[in-house]
């Protein structure tokens, strides 16, 4: 049975519920509302702080390119399900959308979703998280400032002491 659950959230457009989504999902890019949710999830995973976070390093652009080009249809579907699930859970918990929630609320929602979400939702969240981490770790900032990447190390020591 298909159930429409339309919720008005802070001027943002409507989105369909998880049950509706299970009927069939197109390829990314997902509707705008979900890409906003995606950005918010990425921000929870690697937030801004003393050092740059995922948003200022452009990780969402990378994640979206990867979701469009480099994952399977099943994974695209799972990601969309996961984002819709987060939005539904947010409404249930606080009456406002995930995007409109504060950082603390988002973190709780995301951690809970990793525990209590269905298998497909969890798979979708894992895809987002691993792409976020890869995007962060392969950013210019990370590879220059955090753990410098040496393109040409010009050495191999097979018996280097552990500090």
């Amino acid at each position, binding site marked *: 049975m298909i159930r429409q659950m339309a919720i008005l959230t802070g001027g943002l457009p409507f989105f369909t519920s998880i049950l509706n989504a299970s009927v069939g999902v197109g390829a990314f890019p997902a509707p705008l509302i979900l890409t906003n949710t995606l950005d918010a999830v990425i921000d*929870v*995973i*690697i*937030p801004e*702080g003393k*050092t740059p*976070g995922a948003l200022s390093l452009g990780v969402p652009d*990378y994640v979206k*390119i*990867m979701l469009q*080009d*480099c*994952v*399977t249809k099943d994974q695209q579907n799972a990601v969309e399900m996961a984002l819709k699930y987060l939005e539904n859970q947010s409404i249930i918990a606080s009456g406002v959308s995930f995007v409109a929630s504060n950082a603390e609320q988002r*973190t709780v929602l*995301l*951690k809970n979703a990793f525990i209590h979400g269905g298998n497909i939702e969890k798979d979708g969240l894992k895809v987002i*998280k*691993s792409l976020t*981490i*890869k*995007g*962060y*770790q*392969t*950013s*210019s900032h*990370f*590879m220059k400032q*955090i*753990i410098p*990447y*040496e*393109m*040409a*190390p*010009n*050495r*191999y*020591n*097979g*018996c*280097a*002491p*552990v500090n």
Partner: protein
Amino acid sequence: MVNLNLKVAVKHKYDAIVVGSGISGGWAAKELTEKGLKTLLIERGREVKHIEDYPTANLFPWEMKHRGQLPQQVIDENPVVSKCYAFNETSAHFFVKDNEHPYVQEKPFSWIRAYQTGGKSLLWARQVQRWSPFDFEGPARDGYAVEWPIGYEDLAPWYSHVEKFAGISGNKDGLPHLPDGEFLPAFPLNCVEKYFSEFVAQQYRDRQVIVARCAHITEAQPVHIAQGRAKCQHRTLCERGCPLGGYFSSNASTIPWAMKTGNLTLLSDALVAEVLFDEKKNKASGVRVINTLTGESTEYFAKIIFVNGAALNSNLILLNSTSNRFPNGLGNDNGLMGKYVAFHNYKSGINAEYEGHLDVKTDGRRPTSGYIPRFRNLHKQEMDFLRGYATSFSASRSSYTDTNEFGESLKNALANPKLNGHWNIGAGMMGETIPKITNFVALDEKLKDLHGMPQLKISVSYDDNDEKMTLDFIEQFSEMFTKAGFTNLKIRNVNHPPGLDIHEMGGIRMGKDPKTSLLNKWNQLHACQNVFVTDGACMTSTSTQNPSLTYMALSARAANYAVEALKKNIL
């Protein structure tokens, strides 16, 4: 009309034609041009100039759209090439996509190809182990294939010749079954590999763990500097093309060298459709080339022709070179052309962990690994299978990050990866397969490719000997690893069809007898002696070594013979 044709014939006349600019064709071109022969090097793919045509060579991960990964659509559209370990976003432009050159898999076979200047020499794994007398003597001793018409002593000086120029790193290990060569300083084994090497030396007198010899310059000699090449900087980004020329490729080495002689003409986007046979002179006169961009056909003429199209494509070209004299393909009087194709058995590997030597790790990168030469059936037949396997072996200490966290604690964890409490151990077999008449390639009677060439039908598979050998590898390495204290052994059974070893060989094999082989001891077609085949197609048997070094040595040897024979007017 006659005048015009004569003009064209004169204009398109060379002393030598080399078909294919990969690792063996590059060597043929270098030797022939150095000896003064005006040489036309014909490459079916586009021109790729050293350094300037390596677009990804210096890209950082964040500069690539998918950070090195390939789009799912590319993988879906390329079920064959996408299985190759080196095919990724940084290197995909150097590989033939599945739809660009279709072929018929009568039995499943992954045919990996690279059509451009340098061919697969841009992409190879750069492992260069010499064959030994035990390898050349194999077929005669064990009664398979046919006897090799040459022995180790025939090729040894040519191994030295190509090693000095190419730049080979390695240790002088003093092993009769893996002869030493002209080596630059070796890359080292790491602590755990050394431990295993010493352990094996004590426990298994017939086995040795050494560092694999590889075609990397570790100390540039004048001959390398003269090529414009420099010391390997341990980038391990080799399949992008090396801007330093740190590893050997036709692009970095033999082709620019040949070009400097002033005797080389490189013709790109030019597919050799057939070798032309002159019935009056009873020898080959040239080649017919299809321009792959325009579809136009042109003929080029020369006194000698080297066919170096890569093993299976050389078969295709000669099978397609039909005439009244040779209705079944040039030189194919005995009907064996395309037959006795063999390859290397990579069916299994073993991974394990080791909880020793935790006070050390590795630092930097290394473009090679450890290597265990063949020890089975070496001195005599002793197993229930023929021949044996070499093994690649390596240990590495990786780190891990707890990615269960979120937010600042995740950022902190990512910034502070922890060393694993164990080393990762890996071994992979590289087994000899036995050439058989039932493993063959042939021209499909109906299907053509985009250029109107017959599609190649490939009918090659594993056999019982491969299965038995694989079981022995698993048994032996499980035992060696367990005894050495390695734990958590995981057997990797590769269920993929043959081909991904990219060591396909044979079909135009060398031999003493024209009734049972196609090429003589100088790699000349028995029945058309101004045509030489010196790529993988010429191989009588495959032994267990990565074959490229042997193709290089055979090419240099045959080219020098051809020059001498031309001088003596016997070609």
